[in-house]
C-alpha cells in the first residue's frame, strides 16, 4: 500500500517536471503537420476586418490604392498573407496599385510580392498602367509628412529609376490626397500609427492597415474614427481571406497562407494550453497527496 503510494507520488513528481523536449516535439508537430497537410481553418470575419474588406469592395473601378510595405522578413509570415489577400481583392476591383515602403526592408518585399502575385497570377496587368513600384525612401514620418503636400518631390523616380512623370498612372498624383485609400502593412515604427497621425488625420485620407499580433492592441483604439479597419496578426489575415473567398468564389481552391497559418496557430495554442492544464492538474494531485500523506505518513 505505502509502496504503491510512493511510486505514484514519484511518477507525479516526475511528470510535473516533464522533460521539456517532449513539449518541443509537440510544438514542432503542431506547426509542421498542418503545414504539410495544407490544412486551413476558416475564421469568421470580425467587424473590424469586415469594415476594411467592405471598404475595398466598394471602391469604384480605377480607384487609386497606395500600399506601404512597412515590415521586414522576420514578420513576413504574419504580414505577407494580408498583403496577398488585399492585392488580389484590389485587382478584382480593378484598382490601380501604388506600392512603396517607409521601411528599408520593405523595398525587397515589394519586388518579391510583384513577382509572386502580380506577375504570376495576373500576367495581363501592365506595369505603369495598373501598378507601380515606388520603392523605399528614407525619412520615416518626415517622409509621410512631405508626401501629404507634395508626392513627387520625394518620389522623382520609381524603384527602377524611371522618371516619375513618364509613368502614366503617376500623372494625376500630386500628393497623398489623390489616393482613395492608403494601406500600411507592418505596425512597427514607422507604420500605421504614423500614417494615421501624419497623413490620414491631416489630409482626411482613409487609412487601412495590417499589423503583427503584437502591435494590434496599440492600434485598435484608432478604429473606427481614424482607421477604416485593421487586420491583426495571422487571425486578421485569415479573417480577411475568408471574406475574400466568400465574395470571390474563384479563390476558394487557392491555398491561403493566412488560413493555413491560422491552423498551425490554433493547434499550437491548444498544445500549449493542454500542457498548462496538465501541469496544474499534476500539481494539485501532487499537493493533495503530499498534504494527506504528511500527517499520516509517520504512523
Amino acid at each position: 500500500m505505502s509502496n504503491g503510494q510512493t511510486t505514484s507520488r514519484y511518477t507525479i513528481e516526475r511528470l510535473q517536471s516533464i522533460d521539456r523536449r517532449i513539449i518541443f516535439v509537440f510544438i514542432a508537430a503542431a506547426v509542421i503537420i498542418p503545414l504539410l497537410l495544407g490544412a486551413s481553418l476558416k475564421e469568421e470575419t470580425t467587424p473590424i476586418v469586415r469594415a476594411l474588406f467592405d471598404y475595398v469592395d466598394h471602391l469604384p473601378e480605377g480607384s487609386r490604392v497606395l500600399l506601404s510595405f512597412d515590415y521586414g522578413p522576420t514578420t513576413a509570415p504574419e504580414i505577407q498573407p494580408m498583403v496577398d489577400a488585399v492585392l488580389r481583392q484590389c485587382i478584382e476591383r480593378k484598382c490601380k496599385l501604388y506600392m512603396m515602403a517607409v521601411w528599408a526592408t520593405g523595398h525587397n518585399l515589394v519586388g518579391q510580392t510583384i513577382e509572386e502575385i502580380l506577375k504570376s497570377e495576373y500576367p495581363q496587368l501592365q506595369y505603369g498602367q495598373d501598378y507601380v513600384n515606388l520603392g523605399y525612401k528614407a525619412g520615416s514620418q518626415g517622409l509621410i509628412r512631405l508626401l501629404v503636400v507634395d508626392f513627387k518631390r520625394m518620389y522623382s523616380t520609381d524603384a527602377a529609376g524611371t522618371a516619375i512623370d513618364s509613368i502614366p498612372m503617376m500623372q494625376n498624383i500630386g500628393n497623398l490626397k489623390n489616393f482613395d485609400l492608403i494601406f500600411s502593412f507592418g505596425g512597427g515604427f514607422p507604420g500605421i500609427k504614423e500614417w494615421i497621425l501624419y497623413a490620414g488625420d491631416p489630409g482626411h485620407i482613409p487609412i487601412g492597415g495590417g499589423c503583427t499580433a503584437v502591435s494590434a492592441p496599440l492600434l485598435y483604439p484608432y478604429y473606427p474614427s481614424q482607421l477604416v479597419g485593421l487586420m491583426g496578426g495571422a487571425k486578421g489575415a485569415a479573417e480577411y481571406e475568408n471574406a475574400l473567398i466568400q465574395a470571390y468564389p474563384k479563390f476558394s481552391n487557392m491555398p491561403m497562407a493566412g488560413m493555413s497559418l491560422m491552423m498551425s496557430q490554433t493547434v499550437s495554442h491548444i498544445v500549449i494550453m493542454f500542457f498548462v492544464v496538465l501541469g496544474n492538474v499534476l500539481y494539485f494531485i501532487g499537493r493533495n497527496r503530499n498534504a494527506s500523506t504528511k500527517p499520516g505518513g509517520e504512523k
Partner: protein
Amino acid sequence: MRHLLRLFLILLLAFVVDGQSVYSQESDPVTSTADSVATEPVTPPPASAFGLAGEDMPNDNGHKLRVKWQYPAEAVGDITGFEIWRATSPTGEFRMLGQAPNDYFEYLDIGNKETPAPDFMANNSDFFYKVVAIGKNGLRTESEPGGPFRTYGQWFHRGKTPVLVGVVLFGCFTFYFIRAAKKGKELYVRPLAGIEAVDEAIGRATEMGKPTLYILGIGTASEIATIASFAILGRVAKKIAEYQTQLIVPCYDAIVMSIAQDVVRSSYLQAGRPDQYSDDMVYFVTNAQFAYVAGVNGIMMRQRPATNFYLGYFAAESLILAETGNSIGAIQIAGTDQITQIPFFVVACDYTLIGEELYAASAYLGRDPLLLGSLKAEDWGKGIVMALIVVGVVATIFGWDGFRELIRVNL
C-alpha cells in the same frame, strides 16, 4: 486640327492671365493636362486668392511661417488646390514651396536652416508670398504678392514649459533629499526580493564552485537601463571578488564592454584582489542580436554558471536566455525597463526587477545615503504624478479640460 487650335487658344489665354508662368520650370501643368483640356469646353480661369497674411511660428529660431489666405467660397469647387510661392522681395524671384488642397487656406512654410539649401529661410528677415489657385480646367490664377512677413527667432521654447517645470521640480527634490541624507537622516526603503537574493545567489555559486554570469543586455551605453546595470555590476563584482568565485560578462556592445571592464576592474581593486582581475572576464561577443544570444547560450551550456544576472535593456532574446538558463538549473535574477520583456522574465526567472526597480537596485545594494536620497525624490515625483492625475480626473468630471491643456507639451 480643331483640337490643336483650341489648345493654342487655351495656352495663349493661360499665358495672358498667368503673366509669369515662365517661372514654372519644374512642372508645366498647362501642357500636362492638355489632353483633358482639349476635350472640355473653354472655361474662365479660377478666381484669385486674396487677403494673404503671414504669422511667425513661435518656439523656433525663425525658420517657419504660417501663410494664410482667403478664397471665395463659391469658387472652391472650381479648383483642385493651391500652390504657395515665396521670395525675399515682392519683385524678386519666387520659388514654389508646395501645394495645399482646395479646402485648405493655410500653409506652414518650414524653411531650411542651412544656407546652401534652395529653400533656405533666414531668421529675423522679411518674406513675400504668392498663392496660385489651380483650376480644374488646368488654368492658374496668381494672387497679388503678400508681405512683408517677418520671421522671429526665440530664446526659449514655450511649448516645453511643462518639461522644464518637471526637471526643475525634480532637481529640487533630489537636492533636498540628498542633503537630508548627508545630514544623517535615516531613510526607510522597503525590501526588494530580487535585491535580497543577490547575496544568496552569489553565495550559492561559491558553494557549488561554479561561475556567475552577468548579462548587461543588448543596449548601448546610451540606454539608462545599461547605465543602471553598470552600477549593479560594480556591487556584484565586488562581492564576487570577495568570495573569490568566477565572473563571466559577455558583452553585446563594444562601448559597454569598455565601461564594464573598468567597472569590474575597480571592483576587484576595492575588494583588495586586483591581481585576480583580467580582461578575459569581460569580453565582446558580437553586436548582432541573435548571434549574441547563440554565443551566450553556448557559454551557459558549457561553463554551467550557477547564477545568472540579466540586468539592462532586453528585446526578444530575453526568453531564449532565461529558458536556457533555467534548463541548466541556474538561479536567475533579471531586471529590465522594457515593458514587453518583463512578462517573460517574470515567468522564467526566480526574481525580476520590474521597470523602475532596476534603476533603484544600485542604491539598494550600496546603501549609500546619497543614492537612497534620490529614491525618496522619485517617490515624491510619483506622489505628485498621482496628485496631478486625481486633480485631472476631478477636472474632467466637472467638464474643465483646461487642466489637461496646462500640462501638454507642444513640440
